[in-house]
C-alpha cells in the first residue's frame, strides 16, 4: 500500500526530527548555581540548590520520595509508589526531568532566567 508507506516515512522522520533537533538548543551544562524544583500537581512544592538528601511530602504531608542532589545531578533514591519509574529514570542533570504520574510530581532544574548574563559569548552568528 503506497499510502501506508508514505505515512510510515512521515511519522518516522517527524519523530526523529522532534527527538534530535531540540538537542542542539539545550543549554550547556554548568556545575554551579543550579536550582532543583519539585512540583506536585502543577504547584512548586520544593526548591533547593544545596546538595544533600531531600525528603519529599505531598500537600497532605504524606511521604512521597527521597531525592539525592549531588550539586550537579539529581535522582530518586526511594519512593512510595509501586511502579518505581522515578527510580528507574536514574540521574538527571540540567535540562532533564523526572516525572512521576502516580504522585503527580515533576522534578526538574529551574531554567535560568537571564540566559544573556550567563552567556560569555560576545557575538553569535548563524
Amino acid at each position, binding site marked *: *500500500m503506497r*499510502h*501506508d508507506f508514505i*505515512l*510510515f516515512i512521515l*511519522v*518516522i522522520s*517527524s*519523530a*526523529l526530527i*522532534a*527527538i534530535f533537533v531540540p538537542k542542539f538548543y539545550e543549554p550547556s551544562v554548568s556545575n554551579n548555581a543550579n536550582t532543583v524544583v519539585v*512540583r506536585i*500537581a*502543577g*504547584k512548586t512544592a520544593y526548591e533547593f540548590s544545596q546538595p544533600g538528601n531531600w525528603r519529599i511530602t505531598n500537600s497532605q504531608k504524606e511521604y512521597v520520595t527521597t531525592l539525592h542532589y549531588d550539586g550537579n545531578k539529581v535522582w530518586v533514591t526511594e519512593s512510595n509508589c509501586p*511502579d518505581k*519509574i*522515578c527510580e*528507574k*529514570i536514574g540521574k538527571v542533570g540540567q535540562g532533564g*526531568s523526572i*516525572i*512521576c*504520574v*502516580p504522585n*503527580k*510530581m*515533576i522534578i*526538574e532544574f529551574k531554567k535560568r532566567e537571564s540566559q544573556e548574563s550567563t552567556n560569555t559569548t560576545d557575538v553569535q552568528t548563524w
Partner: protein
Amino acid sequence: MVTLGVMVAISSVVYVLESLIPFPVPGGKWGFSNFLVLYLSFFSGITDGIVLAISKSLLGSILSGTILTPGFFMGFLGSLASAIVQGVIARFNIFGLAGISILGMLVNNIVQFLVGSFLIGSSAIYVFLPLVIFLGTFSALANAYLANQTEKIFESMEER
C-alpha cells in the same frame, strides 16, 4: 461472541505480559495487546474494536493491579480513542492494515500524553512523546503483521 471472548482473554494476557518486556521510556509499553483491537477494527467493525479496547484495558489492569491508577486512565482512554479512530479510518479505502495501525498508535500515544499532562498539571511529559512515537511505529507494524496473521488463521478455519 465466543470469538470476542477469546480475544478479550488473549489481549488481557498480552497486556499484562508485555509490561515485562523492557521499553526504553520509563513507564512505557510496546502496545502489542492492541493487535486484536486493530484486527477487529479492520475486519469486523468499529463496535467490536471498541468493546475489546474497553474490556482488555479493564481486565488487564485488574489482573496487574493497576486499575484506577493514573496510568490506567492514560492507557484506557488512549486505547479507546485509538479503537474509534482505527474503526472510522478502516471504513475508507485509503490505508491498509499497516497505515491504520500507525494512525491508531499515534492517536493512542497523543491521547495518553494529553491525559498524563492533565493529571500531573504540567507539559514536561511531552519530552518523551517523539521517542515513544518513533518506537511505537515499529510495534504498530508488528501489530499489523499479527492482525494479518490472525485473519489468515480465521480464513483457514472457515475453509475446513
